[in-house]
């Protein structure tokens, strides 16, 4: 079976500043890959480029999703095809009811895939159940999207969206940052619950703690816009112990 995500020599820039300098990455179906690396190494840029954010200009290389040329697709088409980006800083949408937003998104994706839409009653049931698993209070569904949410609530809300949208490839951009130990556990369990043969994830993180729960199949270390080393879960522990600098010097 082909890989779900194949990135080859991917280069991207903001304006004249190159940020990704040739990324090679392969994620097979059912695997969880971690991407680690110091601040400014291009991890978030990689996630935005894969999700289709327009501020970044792809200057070289390719990204294939299944058989499709990912870079040719609009962000909403990527979403409908099963890509989900959990934002590092989830965006506030004042006045937009959270449940309504989620259902609109889900039905937009279902329409794009030629599936029937889900009605409001059935959806609310689904959302409440998923919310309960993430220890989210019911009123989070009634509030405006991310408005007045605490940092932890925002991250949980991203994982709730992911649980409901059921992506084939989830990209989690530092979903664990700013979370206390309990919240981290809830979020990590939420992601782990999605583990399935048809679910892959690219988990961007600084911390070993999340990876202890998720147990990634592969760990990639980024520095200055390149992946400088890949390995199994053991690599993350090594980084936790010794830091990035040894790896970076080794690569240089």
């Amino acid at each position, binding site marked *: 079976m082909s890989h779900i995500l194949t990135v080859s020599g991917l280069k991207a820039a903001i304006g004249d500043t190159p940020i990704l300098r040739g990324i090679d990455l392969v994620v097979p179906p059912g695997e969880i890959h971690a991407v680690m690396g110091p601040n400014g190494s291009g991890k978030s840029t990689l996630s935005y480029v894969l999700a289709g954010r327009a501020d970044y200009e792809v200057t070289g290389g390719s990204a294939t999703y299944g058989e499709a040329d990912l870079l040719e697709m609009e962000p909403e088409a990527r979403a409908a095809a099963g890509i989900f980006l959990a934002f590092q800083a989830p965006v506030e949408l004042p006045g*937009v*009811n959270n449940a309504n937003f989620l259902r609109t998104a889900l039905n937009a994706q279902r329409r794009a895939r030629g599936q029937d839409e889900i009605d409001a009653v059935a959806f609310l049931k689904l959302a409440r159940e998923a919310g309960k698993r993430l220890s989210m209070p019911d009123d989070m569904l009634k509030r405006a999207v991310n408005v007045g949410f605490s940092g932890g609530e925002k991250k949980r809300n991203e994982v709730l969206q992911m649980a409901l949208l059921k992506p084939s490839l989830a990209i989690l951009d530092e979903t664990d940052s700013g979370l206390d130990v309990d919240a981290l556990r809830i979020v990590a369990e939420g992601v782990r619950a999605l583990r399935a043969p048809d679910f892959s994830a690219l988990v961007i993180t600084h911390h070993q703690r999340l990876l202890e729960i998720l147990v990634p199949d592969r760990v990639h270390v980024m520095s200055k816009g390149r992946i400088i080393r890949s390995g199994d879960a053991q690599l993350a522990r090594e980084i936790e112990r010794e830091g990035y600098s040894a790896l970076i010097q080794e690569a240089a």
Partner: protein
Amino acid sequence: MAATIETIEAVGAATQSGYKWGFETDIEMDVAPKGLDEATVRLISERKGEPGWLLDWRLKAFAQWQAMEEPHWAKLGYPPIDYQDAHYYAAPKRKPGPKSLDEVDPELLRTYEKLGIPIREQAILAGVEGAEDVEARLPVAVDAVFDSVSVATTFKKTLAEAGVIFCPISDAVREHPELVQRYLGSVVPAGDNFFAALNSAVFTDGSFVFVPKGVRCPMELSTYFRINARNTGQFERTLIIAEERASVSYLEGCTAPQRDENQLHAAVVELVAMDDATIKYSTVQNWYPGDSEGRGGIYNFVTKRGACRGARAKISWTQVETGSAITWKYPSCILQGDGSVGEFYSVAVTNNRQQADTGTKMIHIGAGTSSTIVAKTISAGRSDSTYRGLVRILPKAEGARNFTQCDSLLIGDQCGAHTVPYVENRNRRARVEHEATTSKIADDQLFYCRSRGLSQEDAVGLIVNGFCRDVLKELPMEFAVEAQKLLAISLEGSVG
């Protein structure tokens, strides 16, 4: 709450482009020649078989109008209006009532269909004999104003049983002259302003509502206004009276056919609320805004005012303005009765070359009066939108309170939004609060929505509906849905 739940369907349905209601009905018309002089006023009055007092009232208004200057203080720019180059009277020729829908002019039925009026209501509206008995109870009463003359009035019976009078104002002149004479011009005097004077001289039709003491009107009253004849100014006159402890909710919806020439519209709406009475007046206005270069489109110069005459009376204006090339409109409340309440909830959307100068006036006269103003302004394209409001608190308005919130949302970088709040407080103990914000739809909001699967247009619709939520939730259910669709449609193509 219901409003937001419906957003999904609304934005989903709002994907077609262009002006959805841009059609024109070809029906035989009885049209007066172009031009406006005393003879025109006399002709209108004569055609409508009016009593002498009303003709005199019109003629006095016409004389006042002639002595007045067109106002230009609003932030609006448009070529001079030639008041002599328009027809001031147009009426569909009346025929005896048809036996079934098959006999009804198919053009008329098609118009109703495009407006989304259900088939049974169509039969009643088209005056099919016996249609009213078939469907005695529907939740909404519709008095369709087809051009200047009401084609039919429905649900008269249900309302009559409750003692509510709901009819074209010309019928009211014949059947309830004492009420019309007592209240007409009592809130907006004939010489109030240039456009009100013009309306007073040449108004052709509109609605009349009278809710007697202690009666809650059993249904929402709805009128679909249509402007239909080429070069015909539309001068509606609406008068709503709620006696002591009475309450009524009136819905005004407006659509107009697409055409090249600018059309003048100068309506007057007067509301009177006595002790403990409540009037809720809701408008969804989506007249043709002109094309992307600003050609065509309706000129909308409206005077809307409500008087809370009695203690604890309440008047609430809710408007969603998405249409017209030019909008000049300030629905106002005169808070005369002690403890009376005025509300103004407004969404004004401008796109392309549209211009809107709209807001409200809250005049606090009585003690303990309070008013709330929530105005949401959305500008896109190369449009220009101004909120202009006045809060005036007179010396005797002990303990009066006002809260004003004005929010502007800009889409793109070629549009303008302006907020002009006037406050005149002559009572030391009154409390006046004003909040204002200006924001843009941020790229990261759009990307966030798109990364969840929403199209760019759906994302704009969702964000805009969220921005307007405080106002939309004030609308009756039927209108909330239509309003959400309109917001999305009128902003199509404004991003990206």
